[in-house]
């Protein structure tokens, strides 16, 4: 399916002279810039308020109120936290490798933010004075690969930060994290393949389009195994409880960011939350139909709302798991990843492939 904006843009280019062509280009550029700034603003705000939401949800689950002091119901807490972190001293250990110590948090955060460029937040693109605004920054035809590749690059931030700190706890945390990310990235990638077989495309927009028309078209039903595997791998990849061994405070103080303080510490923190939103968005797009409403009659609610509702459901699930489950032991984590998750995801690919082959004839 071709997007509406693309059709009209091509139409104009075909019958226009050079001058109008130039205007179309400039309009496209403006549209892309507006969407980029919008996505960046929304995502950064979402990340900031996710910290607030997590503290609130954890608070309610543990029968307390969470942050209440700054602003009504503590709503300005993220702002206060931000000011505090920005004005804190930036300490670099004397024996650390300064250059890598400084750049590692950035390597961690940038791929996490970049991954938002291929996530479609909604369905309709709308035009305003010739400027078309798409609900995504780019519809890449290998969108899911881009997200997987970027999330694997984020591991470098953790590894390098742990190494450059020149501290036992940091390097142990970093090594644990690298081993964990490699193991679970593999299962995450494998679980995605079932969906790719069914939708016949790697573009996130096309995968969403293939699931339109009611919740019984969603891939969570034929791909329930892949869904569970993806969710577990996603939690493991973002280093959240019960897979937060890289930052297990009872053994490693804080793991790879033990030596970090101030804004550099918060960059790691932001990267973790950005990755949580990415994993939730991808789970929404691949398995819950993305922006598609569960029933066609509910189509009057805008697609963006549906998308955000599903994403926040997964984010709530992250918090819920954190409040409920204890941490795994390291050998349990590895054994579970390689001896259970990987074979099951392989089996899922084979079964899906055979079923798709016979059902389509």
């Amino acid at each position: 399916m071709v997007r509406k904006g693309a059709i009209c843009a091509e139409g104009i280019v075909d019958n226009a002279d050079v001058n109008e062509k130039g205007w179309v280009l400039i309009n496209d550029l403006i549209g892309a810039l507006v969407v980029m700034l919008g996505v960046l603003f929304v995502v950064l705000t979402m990340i900031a308020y996710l910290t607030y939401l997590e503290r609130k949800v954890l608070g309610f689950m543990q029968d307390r109120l969470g942050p209440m002091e700054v602003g009504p119901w503590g709503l300005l807490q993220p702002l206060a936290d931000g000011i505090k972190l920005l004005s804190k001293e930036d300490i670099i250990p004397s024996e650390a490798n300064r250059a890598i110590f400084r750049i590692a948090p950035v390597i961690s955060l940038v791929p996490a933010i970049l991954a938002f460029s291929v996530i479609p937040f909604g369905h309709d693109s709308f035009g305003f004075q010739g400027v078309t605004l798409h609900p995504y920054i780019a519809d890449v035809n290998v969108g899911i690969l881009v997200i997987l590749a970027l999330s694997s690059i984020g591991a470098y931030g953790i590894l390098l930060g742990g190494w450059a700190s020149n501290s036992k706890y940091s390097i142990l945390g970093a090594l644990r994290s690298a081993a964990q990310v490699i193991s679970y990235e593999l299962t995450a990638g494998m679980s995605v393949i079932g969906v790719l077989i069914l939708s016949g495309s790697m573009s996130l927009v096309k995968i969403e389009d293939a699931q339109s028309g009611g919740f019984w078209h969603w891939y969570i039903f034929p791909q329930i195994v892949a869904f569970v595997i993806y969710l577990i791998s996603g939690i493991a990849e973002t280093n959240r409880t019960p897979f937060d061994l890289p930052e297990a405070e009872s053994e490693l103080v804080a793991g790879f960011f033990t030596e970090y303080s101030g804004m550099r510490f918060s960059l790691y923190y932001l990267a973790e939350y950005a990755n949580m939103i990415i994993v939730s968005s991808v789970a929404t797009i691949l398995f819950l139909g993305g922006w598609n409403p569960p029933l066609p009659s509910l189509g009057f609610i805008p697609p963006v709302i549906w998308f955000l509702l599903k994403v926040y459901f997964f984010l709530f699930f992250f918090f819920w798991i954190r409040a409920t489950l204890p941490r795994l032991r390291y050998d349990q984590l590895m054994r579970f990843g390689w001896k259970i998750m990987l074979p099951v995801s392989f089996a899922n690919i084979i079964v899906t492939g055979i079923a798709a082959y016979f059902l389509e004839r």
Partner: protein
Amino acid sequence: MIQQLPFIYFGGMALVCAILVVVSRIAIYSAMALLGMFVHVAGLFILLDAPFLAGVQLLVYAGAILVLYLFVVMLLNVHGRGPILQRQTPWAIILTLLAAGEMGYLVLKSHFYPKLPAIPHPSVPTLGNTETIGMVLYTQYLFPFEVASVVLLIALVGAIVMARGRGGVSQG
């Protein structure tokens, strides 16, 4: 010229990073330079209209293989303090001359023969990039593909035998 700027950037940076890999005295810096090279080679693939290859390049080389390199370097705590070339100087000279000769031959050849087009092969755009690679891999090049996977399997089995062979006792 202006269309070639991205190519010059990606190709040039890939070259610079590749040289840094060899020249750096600290193993971590070499690994980082290698990461830079992988990213820029992925950029070259995108310029060639092969986004699938670019994604796989990042996912496999940058995301898995290089992380394992870094892992080993950090665990062993390697300090490169010796001279860059140790016993391999004659071999290095011979191999460099050979590689330079090959490259020179290719450059001369492309100088006299009609140049290869900078755009992708015309059969590519009809199908998606991913589908095309899949079709070619599983029909035309099926045998080499399977041979490659058997070689990888042998390497895996060999690694396990070497890791377990010494004591003969498995840890369960």
